[in-house]
């Protein structure tokens, strides 16, 4: 094909795809600065459709001041759950990964196979009995229901095993001879070498928890204890709710995450590619 045609065409596609990727986010942010009336008024192709006429922060003020739907509380609830799950998950999963990657013990292959077999179980299948279990434990409407079952993540263990495999066994044996216990070796030698991997896993866990929807929808029914994603969906079932307010809520809960995500995307991308196409 002719170069004079291909090159401009390529750029048109590149830019068009970029516009499609960013436009919904742009639309969300712009709508959050509009008054209730404005969203209904400008419905034809014009400058006013794409930029707010009277910029307002009113939507943001209102969602934080609404006592029936305490938005600040939802953010804190979600942060609490996400931070605890991420921290506990990093510890529990890296411990298991360390043992599988570096230690010699009986039933290792069998245990690893058992762990990995859980990857084929879709969460949706165990949702019902998990809910019944939470009910029996008295954890309905309790953050423990959001935290404890989410800590172990076999996918994360699998990813860390690949990272830990690169740590030479000789170093561990040498430390052993110097009298270090396995707990010390894990904490002082192995973990520090795996910091990039831990960051990757941490980001993935945190994002999963921040985005978590179906499980909180099932186990949390109390308004004040709800997490952010479910809260946002419940805004939409209210009568006479303004889209400006909904978009203010979605903007607050996604833009900071987006910023952090973009800063650390290298790690996230590494995690995806590690798990997908290694070897």
């Amino acid at each position: 094909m002719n170069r004079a045609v291909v090159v401009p065409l390529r750029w048109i596609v590149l830019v068009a795809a970029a516009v499609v990727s960013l436009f919904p986010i742009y639309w969300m942010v712009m709508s959050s600065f509009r008054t209730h009336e404005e969203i209904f008024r400008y419905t034809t192709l014009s400058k006013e459709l794409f930029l707010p006429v009277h910029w307002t922060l009113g939507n943001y003020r209102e969602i934080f001041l609404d006592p029936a739907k305490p938005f600040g509380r939802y953010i804190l609830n979600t942060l609490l759950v996400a931070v605890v799950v991420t921290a506990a998950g990093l510890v529990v999963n890296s411990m298991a990964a360390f043992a599988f990657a570096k230690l010699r013990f009986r039933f290792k292959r069998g245990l690893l196979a058992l762990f990995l077999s859980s990857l084929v179980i879709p969460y949706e299948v165990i949702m019902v009995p998990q809910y019944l279990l939470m009910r029996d434990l008295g954890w309905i409407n309790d953050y423990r229901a959001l935290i404890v079952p989410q800590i172990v993540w076999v996918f994360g263990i699998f990813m860390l095993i690949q990272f830990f495999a690169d740590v030479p066994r000789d170093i561990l044996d040498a430390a052993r001879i110097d009298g270090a216990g396995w707990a010390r070796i894990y904490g002082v030698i192995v973990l520090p070498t795996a910091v990039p991997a831990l960051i990757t896993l941490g980001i993935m866990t945190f994002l999963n928890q921040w985005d978590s929807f179906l499980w909180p929808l099932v186990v949390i029914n109390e308004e004040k204890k709800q997490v952010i994603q479910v809260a946002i969906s419940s805004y939409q079932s209210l009568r006479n709710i303004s889209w400006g307010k909904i978009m203010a809520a979605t903007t607050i809960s996604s833009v900071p995450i987006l910023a952090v995500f973009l800063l650390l995307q290298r790690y996230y991308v590494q995690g995806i590619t590690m798990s997908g196409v290694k070897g």
Partner: protein
Amino acid sequence: MRAIRASLYEKQESRAAFGFIVPAFVLLAVFIFYPMLHALWISFQNYNLIAAHSSFAGWGNYRKLFSDGTFGASLWHSFYFTLVVLPVQTAISLGLAMLVQKKFRGVGFFRTVYFVPVAVSFAIASTIFRLIYNKDYGMLNAVLKGIGLPAVDFLSNPRISMLGIIVLCIWRAMGFVMVIFLAGLNNIPDSLYEAAHVDGASPAQRFLYVTLPLLKRTLAFVVIITTMDALKIFIPIYITTSGGPAGSTSTVVHFIYETAFKQMNMGFAAAAAFLFFALVLAISVVQLRIFRTDVEY
């Protein structure tokens, strides 16, 4: 003496290893494996939380599923969704990956931009698209009207509501899949393309005979995880249409959710979930066979 010390050393290591694994193992056993077995058990029960009694149902729940039109419809909707999303999303993502694979000025910018929607949660993406699709004041209809086309009610017209959801799902996932493809493309040595070029292969031939065969592993991974995720689609359905209009977008997971947590019919929901699990597993196995590679997942 040395042998004793060596065996002591090994014993200690074994004990330490179990210590490291126990927390993960206990959590896995209690919150994944036990519920899995329990799910199987209650799928054979008449177990309704409202009626608060349970009795053995045998194959009753499963038999009922096969004659339940709502379940059948939800199964079809999940498959329809997957059959559209799988080829379209895979093609778009591969296209994007090939566009930004070669280094040029600004390539980093485009890679990042395409990846941005991945960081937007499903719930939020669904909410934004609900506004964009709105019949009266949504942006999409403003554009349609602007170029002289009639307004379309994207989410309340049973014939196209699923397409609206498909578009939003592809928007959110394409950057993620693109990154996987990028990694796969980068594994293909340049020398192969050069050799093909020297042999006079056209760009189309290079794509068909170099890129695609060498991308098989990556492609297999993408196809399998896309299928699994697509069959389980729930959040956008719940938020944008709640399965409507007229049940036209109710998927299997939506059916399970409604049966378990709206009708409180746990036995029936567990049976549906198990049947669905068997189907998903069977499909993955078939796909693995087709690609005949040892994909790690």
